[in-house]
Structures are given as structure tokens and as C-alpha cells.
């Protein structure tokens, strides 16, 4: 038996390194000798027993199986099933440990295998130098990639000023005002981010109007953004400078250039999804995720009614519900928006400006009604939403674009044994473990085309009022972005 051991110190926190290595299908991103990688049968790459197919840069092919994975111990074990290189009974273990002194990572990579007589040295070198040492270098390079681009310059430790948009009193779009804000150097558990794109959400409008006490006059608006991590505070283990991240969180304050936020609230954006796309889908896509996977688990054959189906949330929810096997009915206010809604997955679209949709929903569903209603309309849609419910249907009120929902009569739902709920995205994202799970599912939905991000407009920070006017006019499609 040959035994090969290599170990290295990686200058990044253990969670950050593990997030890459635990993905059994990640090597093409960082390992210099792996040209192609795929998991057989499209299984998830953290499913113990899954098999990956490697094609190396020299053309050799290797099939390897994941035989143990422990997030608790930061350890994985895998073996070669068959390979063009004569490594027999090859079993390897990757083990990470935290270097608490400096927030770095110790990486131990070890294998045992048999080789044909006379080729012991050559093959041990190939594994130890080519695969393991090459992997260390490749991962270091991969992690350093973003760092150069972070461009912190001399600001290390110093506050950074940037342009921002605040609302000076409650009211229409005209109350938005340019201001300057300061992003302090990140404290323990914090990261400082240079925003690349800021997602505009309808909740920004409610807050600006004073409909929701989530911010006070004078505060900077905005609950969502994407960008590049400039620097991190002590004890931050999930991101490093140069990482591209997105977040959706309270308190408000994302309409600005640079911001310091809790590290636990940010999610890394995978390669292949750009910053603008991330800002367009993060809050709205996470909302679609919890609506269709948590609040109500959509099963094939169900009818899902999505209001404002050409809007930011609507386009994502419609496409995602369709991919889960639902019949999707959307409502929109114009024919042009009906096309957008269809493009994004609606089977049926009801065009109405006056919230008359119940008859059409019942007709389209053969009298069944909607098992799930995704409702951001509020006040004006109450009557027809109640009339659109299927037996045991679930009406989810997520917003109030047409006005606040009036109190519901206590017997409002009895005619259909229906349920009603009023969830808030921030309650779902507050727990970092749940946020990571939700974000993972969202990124996968984006990468696999299950949801198709639609950017309906980009505005400079100074034109935020114009963007708000567009959103409130019902003329926007997809998600609107501010680009600082």
C-alpha cells in the first residue's frame, strides 16, 4: 500500500474553505488539473454515494465516489471507482481544521492506494504533487482572485463615505434626497461591502409613504443589495475580502455605495451569476422560495395564482411554481405584461386593472380555484381572492400595493376551509442556517433556468425617485435596480 499525505495552511477561515471543498463537484472552479466535472444522474454533490466524472487536462478520465461527508468534522472521504491511471483501491480523505490563531485553515489531504510494481514513486508524486499540492495552489489562487478587485486601497480600518438616498419625510417619490453616509470599518462579525447593484422592492415604497414603521424620516432606504466584500471584522468565517455577496435585511440602508452589515446575513454569489442578477433575484427569489417550499409545499397538479405576475416577485414565483408542476395563473394590468408573464411561466394570464379575476381563475382551473394565492395586491383584491380560493386553499398576503388589507371577518375563509397567512421575508432570513439553505436553493434555481431573472430597469442612485415613480405607476416589469 502507498500512503500519500500533504497538508497546507490556507489563509481563509474554515467555513469559507469548507464551503468550496465540501462540494464534490467544485473542482473545475479551482483545481488546475481538472478540466471537466459532473455528478452522475444529476444527484446533489453532497449526497453520500454520489459519483463524479472527471476529465483531467491531459485527457485522462476518473470516476470517484463520495463515501463519507461530515460538516461537523469538516471531513470527506472518497474513492476511485475506475480511472485511466492505475491507482487501485485508492481511498482519500480531506480534513480541515481551524487555525484559531489568525482565523485560517489547516488542510490535510491523505490517501492510500496500490500501484503496479515499479510505478510507486511516479504515481505517488503524481498524487502528492500534481493533485494535492496543485490543489492547494489552485485553491489559494481561486480565493485570491476577488481580493485584488476589492480595491480597498488605503481605507483599511478607516470609515468610507458614499452617496446614499434617504427619505426626508414620509410621502411620494419627491421626498427622496441624496445624502452622504459613512460605512465604518467592520467590527466583530461584520463585513463591509461595496455595492454593485441595489434591488428596489415594493416595501421601499411602503416605508417611504409611512405605511410601515421600519424606518424613520431621514433614514436611508433599501433592504437589498449585492456587491464585493471590502473587508471583514474579527470572527467572520463565511466570507473573505473580494467575495461577491448579496443580502436582504433590516434595518433599511442599502440605497448607498458602501455599507457595513452582519456577516451572518450575507450569502456568497456563485460564479456564473453576476452581481446585477443577484440583486434582482435575492430578496424576491428568497420570497418565492419560502412561499413555494416552506409556507406551502407546492405539489404537481396544484393551481397557483400569482398576482402582478410580470413584476419582480411575480416573474420568479410563476416560473418556479411551474417547474414544481403547478398550473400557474397570473394577473397583470396590460397585454404587454401578459406576454412577460407567459414568458416567465404562467399557463394562463388574466389581464385586469380593476382586480376582477375570480371568474377567470375559476374558469381556467376548471372550477377548482387556487390552492395557493401569492398576493401582493392588498386592499383591492380581497373580494376576488376570497372567491378564487380552492377547497383547503391558502391565501398568502405578502403585500399591499393597492392599499392596506382591511380586517378580515372571522368567518371569511369558512366557505372553503381555507387558510390565510401574512409572512415577512426578514423572519425567514434571520436565521443564518436557514438563509444559507434558502440561498442555495435560489442560486440553483437561477443556474438551472427554473427562474429567469428579468431586470426591468437600471437607475443611478440620484434617479431613485424616477425608479419609484415607475414602480408605483404599474408600468414596470421584472425587478428594478439602482446602480451606485
Amino acid at each position, binding site marked *: 500500500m502507498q500512503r500519500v499525505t*500533504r*497538508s*497546507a*495552511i490556507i489563509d481563509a477561515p474554515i467555513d469559507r474553505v469548507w464551503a468550496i471543498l465540501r462540494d464534490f463537484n467544485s473542482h473545475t472552479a479551482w483545481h488546475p488539473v481538472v478540466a471537466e466535472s459532473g455528478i452522475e444522474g444529476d444527484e446533489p454533490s453532497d449526497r453520500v454515494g454520489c459519483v463524479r466524472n472527471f476529465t483531467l487536462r491531459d485527457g485522462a478520465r476518473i470516476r470517484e465516489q463520495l463515501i463519507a461527508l461530515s460538516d461537523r468534522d469538516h471531513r470527506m472521504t472518497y474513492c476511485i471507482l475506475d480511472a485511466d491511471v492505475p491507482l487501485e483501491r485508492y481511498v482519500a480523505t480531506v480534513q480541515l*481544521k*481551524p487555525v*484559531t*490563531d489568525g482565523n485560517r485553515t*489547516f488542510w*490535510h489531504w491523505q490517501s492510500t492506494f496500490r500501484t503496479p510494481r515499479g510505478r510507486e514513486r511516479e504515481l505517488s508524486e503524481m498524487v502528492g504533487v500534481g493533485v494535492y499540492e496543485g490543489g492547494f495552489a489552485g485553491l489559494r489562487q481561486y480565493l485570491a482572485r476577488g481580493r485584488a478587485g476589492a480595491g480597498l486601497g488605503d481605507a483599511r480600518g478607516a470609515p468610507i463615505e458614499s452617496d446614499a438616498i434617504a427619505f426626508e419625510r414620509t410621502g411620494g417619490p419627491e421626498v427622496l434626497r441624496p445624502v452622504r453616509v459613512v460605512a465604518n470599518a467592520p467590527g466583530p462579525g461584520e463585513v463591509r461591502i461595496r455595492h454593485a447593484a441595489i434591488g428596489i422592492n415594493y416595501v421601499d415604497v411602503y416605508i417611504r409613504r409611512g405605511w410601515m414603521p421600519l424606518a424613520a424620516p431621514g433614514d436611508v432606504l433599501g433592504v437589498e443589495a449585492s456587491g464585493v466584500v471590502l473587508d471583514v471584522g474579527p470572527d467572520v468565517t463565511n466570507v473573505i475580502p473580494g467575495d461577491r455577496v448579496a443580502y436582504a435585511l433590516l434595518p433599511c440602508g442599502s440605497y448607498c455605495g458602501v455599507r457595513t452589515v452582519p456577516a451572518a446575513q450575507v450569502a456568497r454569489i456563485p460564479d456564473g451569476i453576476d452581481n446585477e442578477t443577484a440583486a434582482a433575484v435575492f430578496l424576491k427569489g428568497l420570497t418565492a422560495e419560502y412561499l413555494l417550499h416552506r409556507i406551502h409545499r407546492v405539489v404537481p397538479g396544484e393551481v397557483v395564482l400569482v398576482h402582478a405576475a410580470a413584476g419582480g416577485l411575480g416573474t420568479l414565483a410563476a416560473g418556479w411554481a411551474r417547474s414544481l408542476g403547478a398550473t400557474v395563473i397570473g394577473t397583470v394590468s396590460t397585454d404587454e405584461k401578459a406576454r412577460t408573464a407567459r414568458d416567465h411561466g404562467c399557463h394562463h394570464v388574466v389581464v385586469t386593472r380593476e382586480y376582477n379575476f375570480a371568474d377567470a381563475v375559476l374558469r381556467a382551473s376548471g372550477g377548482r380555484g387556487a390552492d395557493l394565492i401569492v398576493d401582493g395586491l392588498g386592499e383591492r383584491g380581497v373580494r376576488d381572492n376570497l372567491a378564487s380560493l380552492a377547497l383547503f386553499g391558502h391565501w398568502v398576503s405578502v403585500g399591499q400595493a393597492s392599499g392596506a388589507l382591511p380586517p378580515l371577518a372571522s368567518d371569511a375563509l369558512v366557505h372553503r376551509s381555507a387558510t390565510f397567512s401574512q409572512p415577512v421575508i426578514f423572519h425567514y432570513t434571520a436565521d443564518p442556517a436557514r438563509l444559507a439553505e434558502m440561498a442555495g436553493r435560489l442560486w440553483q434555481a437561477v443556474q438551472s433556468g427554473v427562474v429567469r431573472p428579468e431586470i426591468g430597469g437600471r437607475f443611478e442612485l440620484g434617479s431613485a425617485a424616477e425608479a419609484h415613480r415607475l414602480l408605483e405607476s404599474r408600468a414596470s416589469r421584472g425587478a428594478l435596480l439602482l446602480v451606485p
Partner: protein
Amino acid sequence: MIRVYTSSVIDAPADTVWSVIRDFNALPAWHPLIADSRIENAQPSDKVGCVRAFRMRDGGQLREQLLSLSDYDYQCTYSILASPMPLEHYVATLKLTPVTDGNRCFAEWSAEFDCEPARERELSQTIGQGVFQAGFDALKLRFGRR
């Protein structure tokens, strides 16, 4: 059970560092907090089961027993028999692992013990930073290449 874990990187081969720390009676020679030490009953310091009695620079007296010693794994385990600290069932492990990249070593020092919940933070801090990290800092200084 409270668990404290401290780890560091020392810029010397594991063999070299191990030759300094494997001696259960050598704390005063490398750990800045320890004033003097002796092994009870004149036993050899690498005899598993031996007890070291040592004094901290602040005057505290401790007795610790060697539970295991492995030259193969660069690892030793010991327990506290008596100490001024309000804790019980204290078992600690000190371990080195070679880092092939750069010919350095990865050092881990961990402990498990029981104590009153109200003292957890303070004791974890004292042991993890005050004792373990202070020891690593001394080793880093001693073996520093620059």
C-alpha cells in the same frame, strides 16, 4: 462539558517542536506562565501516569497527570488533579501535525472540563487564550524564522 480549542502554526518541523514539548516536566523551559516544575516520586517525565507539580508565575500551584503520550502522533493528554481554578474533570490534549507545505507544523491544544455555568466564559478565555495561546506565542517566537 465545556470544550476549549486553540490552534496555531509554528514555523518549524513537527519533530523539532515536539522535542521541546514532549517532556512533561519542561513547561518552565518554554511556557512563559510557568515558574518551576517537578515530577512527583522521581519518576521519568515520559512515564505515562507520572504527575507533574508546578507553580505558575502568579503563585498558583497545580498537579497534572500524564494520561497518554504518543511520539508517533506527536500528541499527549493529561488531566488536572489539583488547581486553583474552579473546574472539574479537566482533560487536555496537545498535538502537533506536520504541514508538508512549508515544513511547518500545525499545533492544537484543547481541553474539556466542567464548571459552574457562570464561570464558563471566563475560564474558557483564561485557558484558551491565557494558557494555550500564550504557549503557542512563546513557541512561535522561539522558532520564528524571521
